[in-house]
């Protein structure tokens, strides 16, 4: 599904190197988790994959089902099936959440040569997905993320994911800011989407989320590289002992 090879990334404006040769392969149907110390480059990786400005790829490649991701516009990547649940979802005053969701869904469908969803069908679809995430109708009427609490913003990200049904879902610390119940709801939302044709890359600091969303593979990222890869037990080890041992082992 997603294949990243020897990815090197620096900031466009400064001579600051952030990713120093990331290699990662996520197969369809799998859930991979990435853990790693603050500032190790996890969000940067997710931004570079989704096409945010400000980064320069100096080496390496990233493909989504054999399409060269790094050459596509952000909207093309989205239409190709990539989705990033932001660590910090963005507030957009003046743009209604419903307008936003419908515009996004129909734009993606149009890009794929599919018919637009009618207003009625769309409304039904959103209501259904919102209800399962316990997002109340009132929130849907407000501008995108404006006045949403931290946890509501994260749930809104998952709502978008559920609606857009992407193939490759990257979740950047979706668990931070969620209360215990919300974490369960969000995890159920993610688990409901798990299937053969879809893959997840879950960035997190905590084992707790991985109790609900059971990963197939766990990676540790440090200083711009994947330094260790293992099974779910790797996350448990991090939870217990922190990163010191792992990082010492690398050096």
């Amino acid at each position, binding site marked *: 599904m997603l294949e990243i090879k020897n990815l090197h990334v620096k900031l466009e404006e400064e001579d600051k190197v952030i990713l120093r040769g990331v290699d990662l392969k996520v197969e369809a149907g799998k859930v991979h988790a990435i853990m790693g110390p603050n500032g190790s480059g996890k969000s940067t990786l997710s931004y570079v994959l989704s096409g*945010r400005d400000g980064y320069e790829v100096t080496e390496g490649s990233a493909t989504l089902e054999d399409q060269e991701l790094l050459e596509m516009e952000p909207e093309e990547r989205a239409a190709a099936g990539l989705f*990033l649940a932001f660590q910090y979802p963005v507030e957009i*005053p003046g743009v209604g959440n419903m307008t936003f969701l419908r515009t996004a869904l129909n*734009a993606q469908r149009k890009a794929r040569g599919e018919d637009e969803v009618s207003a009625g069908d769309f409304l039904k679809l959103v209501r259904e997905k919102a209800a399962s995430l316990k997002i109340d109708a009132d929130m849907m009427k407000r501008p995108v993320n404006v006045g949403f609490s931290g946890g509501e913003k994260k749930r809104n990200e998952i709502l978008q994911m559920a609606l857009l049904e992407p193939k490759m879902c990257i979740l950047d610390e979706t668990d931070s800011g969620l209360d215990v119940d919300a974490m369960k709801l969000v995890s159920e939302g993610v688990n409901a989407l798990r299937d053969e044709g879809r893959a997840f890359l879950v960035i997190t600091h905590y084992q707790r989320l991985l109790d609900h969303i059971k990963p197939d593979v766990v990676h540790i990222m440090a200083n711009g590289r994947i330094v260790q890869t293992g099974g779910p037990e790797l996350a448990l080890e991090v939870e217990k002992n922190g990163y010191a041992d792992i990082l010492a082992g690398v050096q």
Partner: protein
Amino acid sequence: MALPQAKLDQLSARIAGLHFPATGWQGKARGEALERLGAMGLPGKRDEYWRYTDPTALTAPETKAVEGRGEAAFESIDAVKLVFVDGVFDAAASDDPALAGVEITRLAEVADIHWAGDLYGQLEAAGQTPVQRPLAAIGSAFATDGVLIRATAAAGRPVALVYRSESYSSDVILHHVVKLEEGAELTLLESGDAAARLLTVMEVDVAKDARFHHVRSQGRTPERLVATHIFARIAEGALFKSFTVAANGVLTRNEAVLDIVGDDAVAHVAGVAVGDGRDFLHDDTVFITHGAERCESRQVFKKVLKNGATGVFQGKILVKPGAQKTDGYQISQSLLLDGDSQFLAKPELEIYADDVKCSHGSTSGAIDDTALFYLRSRGVPEKAAQSLLVLAFLAEALAEIEDEAIAEDLRARLEGWLDRHDG
């Protein structure tokens, strides 16, 4: 105080060839306007009130022909249409001006005894202090035509003034007078391009508990020059709302002078301007006087500028002694789509009452890159995402239009403009 010779010569050159009827109340009112004009002379670049906008093109004796692209708005709105072609009322192209509770007369055909006799030029004259507005005096003195509208009840349909130009070489001067009697309600629409150079004055007298809505779409002819003036007197419990959308044109100066004279009145003036190109200058100049208690005023102006366009806002709230519990709000904002464009704003508050709430804010900024990326990351193409953000920026101003159908008409028009101007 006599004007210096150079100013007199400049004024003579500007009004050479212009005439007005010498008799009746019109002759008197227009004569007085000419006297006011003679005492003021034309505005100059060095005048404080024209600091950001060079009036030369408006004061020059002649104006050059332009290539017209007039576009009437509000076609989806069921209104009584009054059409002016090159500044002259065209009865054949217009609807029958019969509307229950509303009396409509053409300025060029008005009788010697008429209700407008007590009003014509009066609000303009009052609006000459503390700031001089010589162009408005030209409008009162030399208007070739206009409408006189008197509403005595709630009008069932809006009245729509539609401007067309056939030659686009014309220099048109119009003067409208609108009077709403106690408890009356009227919506007045204006759209289209009247001329290569248009000068208008509209005097609006809103009596007790009356409600006046004005929505205007200024034409799209790229090289047109426009100077408009609204003078309103707003009585107790009355409501006055004026909204303008403008795109294109090399020079637009829209002045609004609102005088709130009765308690519990409401006065809103708002506008959206979309400017593209180094030649574009759009200037909103507003002066609101609070002279009564518990009144509310709002000024909401938004501009989207690119490729070197300039936006100007001069807005003043004057709260007179005794105008307690005044609620004054003023915001002027520009969205600069590139580093070449500029926004010049001069917000002013002058308050002589102690129990008032007045706020003002002025900002200019760029499209929020983070928001743009967020939208694109969800699959919204860049241009559509940008349009969404621009419309979001304009939303607060558009919300000032009360009638949803009229607002929707303008919103669709704006979307069209934004799409066409992309890239």
